[in-house]
């Protein structure tokens, strides 16, 4: 034990050395005068935290080896089909009824969560199923959002007319980028997509005449229900709004609930499409390619086409979600499409478990709902987020709810993340 103590003390000392210049000394700038101000408490706190964490590491390891069984824990997948469908229907009905009982604020957050669910599901196809790391996913999201904003601004098209167009545009962008770069190996691909995401953001920022530059585009119309607007007064002369048509009193909450329901329907649609696709040959090919590209090639599958289909599909999902995002916000600017957004969506996929759809959905809800609940810690949100990514990779790289799929393995295997 004394050895552990002295080791922990050493680690704490190192933590002290590292944190003193960043947390312990602050630069104060007043006019042209620069001065330094010492603040010992954060450093002491960091040292104590590191000391305790280091001491707890050994008992924690012992505990985690005891509960090793949880590694294989996942949702029961062998439910009878009727039972499963019933459960699914129940969940959908609950999700559809819920907004009428909840507060306006929480419905709004839930809508945001659904956008992230869509993005997560789309990226899950690219990263989880096809095994292609895409760090510029937000670019396609931006294409969808700007696509809708520009089409409605210049051509007066409605949300429902734009939606398929946005999907096509995003898919085409995905294929255009994907075609040359998909030959690259995993981590090169990640960096190229990252660079591409940045190029798109820089272009949005600088093509002032087209995109409005840093100011973005405002007054984006909201979706309508078969032509019925959700507004106090119709925006076009002679139009009817939702509350006039049904003879209700105008309520701002209607819009919020309607947007939530639209997002829910869109999410279910994406979920349905993905679940059909992964049972089709192309979906099987995605997974096969992730497992072993060389084996795939020798079986006569064309890796480029398969990768391209996954990439294009992921991009189109992002475009789909992007169009809805623009409609919900009513205002977009390049600030919404930074790298951090890509990182959040990637974190959703990784935390949920690559390839596991239920895990991705839960992770998306958790990652959007938790920061809203812990508002007083808003400053630390991204700090914790980064830390969680690192710790997850160390302790549970397969995600919280890893995908289980039938597999045949030799019983004796080297210990390690698969």
């Amino acid at each position, binding site marked *: 034990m004394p050895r552990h103590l002295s080791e922990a003390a050493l680690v704490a000392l190192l933590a002290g050395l590292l944190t003193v210049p960043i947390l312990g000394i602050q630069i104060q700038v007043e006019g042209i005068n*620069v001065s330094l101000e010492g603040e010992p408490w954060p450093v002491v706190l960091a040292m104590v935290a590191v000391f305790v964490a280091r001491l707890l590491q050994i008992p924690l390891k012992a505990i985690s080896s005891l509960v090793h069984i949880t590694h294989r824990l996942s949702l029961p997948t062998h439910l009878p089909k009727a039972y499963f469908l019933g459960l699914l229907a129940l969940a959908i009905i609950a999700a559809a009824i819920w907004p009428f009982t909840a507060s306006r604020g929480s419905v709004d957050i839930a809508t945001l969560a659904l956008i992230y669910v869509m993005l997560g599901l789309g990226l899950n196809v690219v990263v989880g199923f096809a095994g292609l790391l895409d760090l510029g996913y937000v670019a396609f999201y931006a294409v969808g959002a700007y696509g809708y904003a520009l089409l409605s601004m210049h051509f007066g098209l409605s949300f429902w007319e734009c939606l398929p167009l946005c999907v096509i545009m995003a898919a085409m962008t995905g294929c255009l980028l994907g075609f040359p770069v998909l030959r690259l190996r995993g981590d090169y691909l990640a960096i190229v997509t990252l660079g591409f995401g*940045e190029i798109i953001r820089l272009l949005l920022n600088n093509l002032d005449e087209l995109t409005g530059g840093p100011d973005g585009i405002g007054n984006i119309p909201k979706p309508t229900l078969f032509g019925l607007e959700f507004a106090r007064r119709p925006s076009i002369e002679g139009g009817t709004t939702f509350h006039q048509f049904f003879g209700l009193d105008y309520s701002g909450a209607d819009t919020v609930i309607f947007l939530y329901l639209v997002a829910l329907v869109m999410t279910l649609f994406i979920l349905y499409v993905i679940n059909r696709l992964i049972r089709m040959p192309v979906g099987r090919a995605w997974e096969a390619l992730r497992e072993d590209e060389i084996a795939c090639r020798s079986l006569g599958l064309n890796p480029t086409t398969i990768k391209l289909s996954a990439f294009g599909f992921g991009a189109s999902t992002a475009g789909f979600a992007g169009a809805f995002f623009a409609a919900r916000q009513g205002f977009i600017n390049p600030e919404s499409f930074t790298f951090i957004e890509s990182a959040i969506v990637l974190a959703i996929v990784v935390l949920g478990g690559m390839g596991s759809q239920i895990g991705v959905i839960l992770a998306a809800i958790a990652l959007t709902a938790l920061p809203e609940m812990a508002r007083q810690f808003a400053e630390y949100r991204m700090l914790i987020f*980064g830390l969680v990514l690192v710790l997850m990779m160390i302790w549970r790289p397969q995600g919280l709810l890893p995908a289980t799929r039938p597999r045949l393995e030799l019983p004796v295997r080297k210990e390690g993340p698969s």
Partner: protein
Amino acid sequence: MLEFSQQIINGLTLGSIYALIAIGYTMVYGIIGMINFAHGEIYMISAYIGLITITALTVQFGVENVPLILLFTLAVSILITSAYGWTIERVAYRPLRGSPRLIPLISAIGMSIFLQNYVQIGQGARDLSMQPLISGGWRFGPEDGFQVYLSYMQVLIAVVTVIFMTALTLFIARSRLGRACRACSQDLTMTNLLGIDTNRVISLTFVLGAALAAVAGVLISLYIGKINPFIGFEAGIKAFTAAVLGGIGSIPGAMLGGVILGLAESFASAYLLTEYKDVVAFSLLVLVLLFRPTGLLGKPEIEKV
């Protein structure tokens, strides 16, 4: 012609900084084959440490000897930043040794986000600026026309960069540990079998990379005089571009790539539009990866089954 040489001067200055950072990427990639995404953040941290040390020396202690300030700042910054590099490897990458490629990359992204926000909490998100420590320079050219301006700071950047690059090259080529580094980049397992502590070599790689990034950070905080917690991300991607451009895994390649990228960017902002210099840099990255993934000086990688 004069404007052209001005752009060459600016480009070389910028390129030196990129080259210093790029070496960290290329050495780590050469040995363990991972992209150390948090490397840009190391550079950002060193810029902060540099700024704090300089402020402490000049304002708090009233030191006025510029070479002394410079040497002391470099030493402090290299020391602490190397400790950061070592710690990051220990905490975020070593436990992941031997896992699939994407796992350490995601961990590195997490680390990068963590460090960025950690500095933001400690020092605030606003721009910090400082009085230039070294000002002035030489002017060439006609009195009434376009004059080429070469500041003392630019000369200093070039000189310091050359000194550190030479030191690194000698270290890698001549010393025992340098030989171990080269062996590790050829075959990690085999080197381990031959009795070299590869974990120590990998740690050393991170420390060396961080030390050079520290030099870059101190120089940039003296040159530009304006830093914020987000400078690491952009500089990181650009330095990575430089590393890829020169051929990832090759140290001379990283130097060459940095200089080429710096020149390209400086010409782009002079002859195209300033706003598009980043677009040019990223496009260069995409193009290089497409047409010559091995880079200018890199060796082709043979896929083993």
